[in-house]
């Protein structure tokens, strides 16, 4: 079986190169194939991995243009493996996720205050059980088209995390969370649903963002693009001058 891997040896060497490898494994995960290449053929191949069981989020990458976890994807002959998008490439299949991770803090994705003794029913718990399955692999972040036009977008996983806390009965100040996601947040999403399609945990950030929009509207916020396109709802008028 042959697979092709997009190689890039880091800043010291500028050119990128697609290299083909042949391995004799069958019915193997991509991570098993990468390990085989690294330990037996080419020790310079770089990628991240950890748990092998789709829970640590380390081995996210793209195969044939689609985000996958290498440990959960069964390799097929002719597959083309590339690093994730929207994050600076460090080397080979490794990207720098620091900036992506920082959006969790920018979106204030945490419970505002510590609250003891709140009784959650099974229904309460089910409200955000799925969202708290997130493994921060960054697949949704890589596939998101918004970063092509706005690199300050809080992004799918951070907004899902915000929904996780806002929907939680233990959160005592949901309003402050809603306030924090108005700029570069819920309204910048195009609702293209790509994030949903690549999530290995079956989470739909798009749906979570829609729910956050409804909560935002209920709190008196409105879609700023809607406001601008119709001129005078308290935003800027057509010529850009402030309107009152």
């Amino acid at each position, binding site marked *: 079986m042959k697979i092709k891997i997009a190689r890039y040896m880091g800043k010291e060497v500028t050119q990128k190169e697609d290299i083909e490898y042949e391995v004799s494994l069958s019915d193997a995960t991509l991570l098993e194939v990468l390990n085989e290449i690294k330990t037996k053929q080419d020790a310079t191949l770089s990628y991240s991995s950890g748990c*092998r069981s789709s829970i640590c989020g380390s081995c996210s990458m793209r195969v044939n243009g689609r985000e996958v976890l290498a440990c959960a994807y069964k390799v097929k002959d002719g597959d083309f493996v590339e690093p994730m998008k929207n994050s600076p490439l460090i080397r080979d299949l490794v990207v720098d996720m620091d900036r992506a991770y920082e959006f969790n803090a920018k979106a204030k994705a945490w419970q505002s205050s510590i609250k003891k003794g709140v*009784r959650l029913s099974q229904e309460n718990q089910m409200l955000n059980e799925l969202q708290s399955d*997130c*493994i921060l692999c960054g697949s949704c972040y890589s596939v998101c088209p918004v970063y092509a036009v706005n690199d300050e977008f809080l992004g799918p996983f951070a907004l899902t995390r915000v929904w996780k806390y806002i929907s939680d009965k233990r959160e005592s100040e949901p309003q402050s969370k809603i306030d924090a996601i108005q700029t570069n947040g819920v309204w910048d999403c195009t609702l293209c649903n790509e994030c949903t399609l690549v999530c290995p945990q079956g989470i739909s950030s798009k749906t979570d963002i829609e729910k956050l929009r409804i909560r935002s509207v209920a709190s008196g916020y409105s879609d700023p693009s809607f406001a601008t396109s119709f001129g005078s709802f308290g935003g800027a008028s057509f010529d850009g001058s402030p309107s009152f």
Partner: protein
Amino acid sequence: MRSDVLIIGAGGAGLVAAINAHESGAKVRVITKEYPTRSQTCMAQGGINAALGNASDDSVEAHVQNTLKSAHGIANEDAVRHLCESAPDAVEWLDSIGVCFSRTKDAKIAQRTLGGASAPRACYAKDYTGLKILHTLYDRCNALGIEMLSERYLLNLVTHKPTSSDAYIGGATFLNIRSGEVESYEAAAVIVATGGYSRIYDKHSTNSTSSTGDGQAACLRAGARLSDMEFVQFHPTALKGSSILISESARGAGGYLLNSKGERFTNELAPRDEVARAINEEIQKGEGVFLDIRHLGEEFIDRELPQERKLAKLYENIDPVYEIIPIKSVAHYTMGGIEVDKNSQTNIEGLFAVGECANHRVHGANRLGGNSLLELVVFGKQAGVNAAKYAKIFDKTIETKEQVKRDEEFLKRVKEFSNEIGFYEKREFIGDVFYNNVGISRDAKGLKEALDAVYKIQKEMPMMGPKDRSKIYNTNLVEFLEFVNMIELCESVLVCAIERKESRGAHYRSDMLEQNDEKYKAHTIAYEENGTLFTDFAE
């Protein structure tokens, strides 16, 4: 770059310590070789023990007694009492910061039974307990603005030893994996929270490939002591082909263990050492061993054990709803680790350790499922608070430049190693040797053979080394350094296992079946002096 408290490792233990040190007023910095949510903690599935009595009657005393029984005489009762008494508060705290525990019909935290427990005591979140705890801790650290630095690999701890007093810590050095540069971080107090060393068993382990014992090896080099290193827990049920964990909760919920004839052969809910041995004996007899959860039904499996179903399908092409799952027992948790006192401090002033890398003497010879997540919350808090306290009154000078220079020279030398022997092959080889000779059943001859193999590798080390000599994100180099650490720990595991001429918990000697309390109801201690390893027994 100086902080009051430097925490190495961003798993559950490290992050709990960070939160508590921060809340005690310290300037905290966390450094990890991965990212803060990618540690071994996320793989914990079963739950976290606390005698809440939400599912049926339970008591702190029963939790204490179950833990002590499983520890086979070498747990510290005071430490165990502290662990179990603090458990309800620990779970309440996790609940208060937003962990999504599963709930009962009457809106309490749901609990289930794990092996060796007299009551359903493990609070859980589906089979994602560790994941949800770890991510909530990470969110909490963000809320507090705690600095977390990723992809920096621990090289060495920096200690100072003025002639007139004991050694004290001053920081640590790291390889910045991205830049390839050696960096130093000075701190008054350092907390090592780097996880266990189960990967010495290589592919015969449920663990993340990151569980390579970096912290223990660095502590050993710095003059701290390790204890009970021979006690390694084998998890009864891992997938046969891939060593992927199938949670104990599958048996807690009523799963059976079957041999090839379809017969049950053991009490599925005995402590892990007993179940693992029973499975091993069947396999020795030539039987295949299987986990059967078909009778639990699809709805239950999807609700309570969704990961198990997914992983069995992926790795074994088996759907546990309809088929029995082929399993074996593999290395899962290392009870031994960095020796600490009742304040979580090592014998080096200002150097603390917590989590799987440390030995708080609560697990003894065999850990109970559900006690390790608990341990990292209870002792993470203790380590964080005490490190902050120590840092506040710290008034000594720190200097890390010398160590940086030594590490740079070391890395340069390593990159010049001759590469006649491939270390990946040796890593796999020693993993096989450990699984066969230092695994569920051991004897003097096998241990001696393994030690010879380790010595041989130590000698051959300069003939290995990384093939990749580049600077940027050199994982080949990092994996070689991990291998060096693991080989260092392999020696201490073996020397301790050879010295302990008895069977106790996870340390089962087929040539010495009796537990000998008169001679060995004690802790094995390993330490290094001038590069030579010594062992001893201590109370």
